[in-house]
């Protein structure tokens, strides 16, 4: 791989419980090229989500470096990380995590508040993102008025609205029925192929993993 977008080198992560040190990731080295769609699989406790969180910059490693487009995110301060995340990472959570008191379009607009865009531009971007996920007609709906699949699509719209290079998805179909899961996976596939988004997905679902271009197995904190 000539110029990988993501370079993880000798990454380790341990948690401390009282005086006990619990290793979660051991000496992980990984490269992901721009536009890849990688699925991380493995049993519970294997460290998949921890790896995803470290790459997304919402957790700090015990050892090792994570270079993303040349930036070592492990060296950034909390404030720098927050700014970096807002520009480079789109999050897709298992339970969607939409703000229940905001409409679909307002939820999608949230990350744009941190940009210098005007209110009108923000609204236009959010509407476009909702159009991409096929929910243009549900802009004014509150999360409680949407199905699980639709909520996840709104969450995806929120993840892509700032046009980040990387999408991280933690069990994006874990809370969905088969049909909704299929819709969400189709959408992620489109984002990857048509918009060249680099997608890192943690999943237990083999059918979801099949949609990725590559699958990496983790076991006891190590990449197989």
């Amino acid at each position, binding site marked *: 791989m000539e110029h990988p977008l993501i370079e993880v080198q000798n990454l380790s992560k341990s948690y401390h419980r009282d005086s006990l040190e619990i290793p979660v990731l051991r000496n992980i080295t990984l490269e992901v090229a721009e536009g890849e769609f990688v699925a991380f699989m493995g049993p519970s406790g294997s460290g998949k989500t921890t790896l995803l*969180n470290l790459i*997304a910059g*919402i*957790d700090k490693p015990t050892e090792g470096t994570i270079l993303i487009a040349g930036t070592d995110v492990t060296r950034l301060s909390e*404030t720098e990380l*927050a*700014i970096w*995340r*807002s*520009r480079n990472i789109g*999050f897709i*959570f298992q*339970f969607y*995590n939409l*703000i229940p*008191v*905001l409409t679909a379009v*307002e939820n999608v*607009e*949230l*990350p744009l*508040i*941190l940009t210098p865009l005007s*209110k009108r531009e*923000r609204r236009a971007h959010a509407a476009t993102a909702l159009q991409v996920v096929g929910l243009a007609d549900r802009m004014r709906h509150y999360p409680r008025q949407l199905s699980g699949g639709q909520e996840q699509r709104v969450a995806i719209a*929120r993840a892509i609205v700032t046009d980040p290079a990387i999408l991280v998805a933690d069990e994006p179909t874990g809370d969905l029925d088969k049909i909704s899961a299929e819709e969400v996976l189709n959408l992620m596939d489109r984002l990857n192929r048509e918009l060249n988004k680099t997608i890192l997905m943690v999943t237990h679902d083999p059918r979801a993993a099949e949609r990725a271009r590559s699958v990496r197995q983790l076991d006891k904190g190590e990449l197989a």
Partner: protein
Amino acid sequence: MELLRLLFRNALRHKLRSLLTILGVGVAVMAFALLRTVVSAWHAGVEASSANRLITRHAVSFVFPLPLAYRDRIAQVPGVENVTYATWFSGVYIDKNQFFGRLAVDSETFFEVYPEFLIPKDQFDTFKRERNACIIGVDLARRYNLKLGDIMNVEGDVYPGSWEFVVRGIYRPRDQTTDPATMMFHYKYVDERVRLEMPERSGEVGWYIVRIRDPENSAAVSEAIDRLFANSRAETKTETERAFQQNFLSSASAVITAMNIMSFLIIGIILLVVANTMIMSVRERTHEYAVLKALGFSGRHLFFLVAGESLIISILGTALGLLVTLPAVRGFQTALPKGWFPVFYIKPETIVLGCIAGFLVGLIASLIPTRRILTTRIIESLRHVG
């Protein structure tokens, strides 16, 4: 703007809880303002006192009279501009619950020394001409539906017997701190009858009020007056009017201090209530704040959201509390025996203090939940089960 919208919607997310908290803040602010008003009413006499007035009374106690003959000698003390006197008449008007000041005064000089009692000239002239005339405050006229020419029958206790006074003047207080419910009549009228019925008490007055030229000289003038009567049958104690009024408060100082402390304790309690509401609200939304942090929102944004929500609740509560304070103060005054607090009004400082308290409650109540959001790691918050 979206954050502002989110802030407002968050504040109203649990309508019942927010409403109860707002009501709680409202009741607390009202109680705070009411207590402050009572404390202020207690201090009204002190606040109404003038810097250029001294009070000369018997050195042993206020209840012992002074000879009328002292008046001319006091008037000759350097620095003294005018001297008048008054006597506490007491007595019962209608029944013992009708309390207001009844003073026998020197009609020639008393109102010169107390320009804060505003009396129409024609009424004052009539008052001076009639021996059993009296002047009453507008509050008394309103309270007992008295008009000029009406008779007030007072049953004397300090000065026994039935006393009849004719209302010849109704004064308006110049300042908000001036007592609008005092009755004043001629000392001469009282003393003439005393001379006949209790001659040993004739020619005695309750206290002297001394107007001085320069308030800076109050200590020297006081000392000079008291020196005049040292080693006499009735030694004097002269002090500023403010100090004299404060002596009256000293007996109630423990109660006033307790009320002062209570008023601030109430604010402390409501701070805990609002803080509790905010902690509960923020804990329920741990996931949402974690998502906002993951999206790149900074501590400043999160503080704005939490403090803003807390401030909305406390400011609405404060506004409600101050709004109901006015009728509450009126109701409180009505419920009290007549004349307990002749000067009873909400001071602007009380409103300002209430607003400051409401703002600080909102701000301080948001500190703990904000700190919790900021110090909890995103991944821990995302794992949190609310």
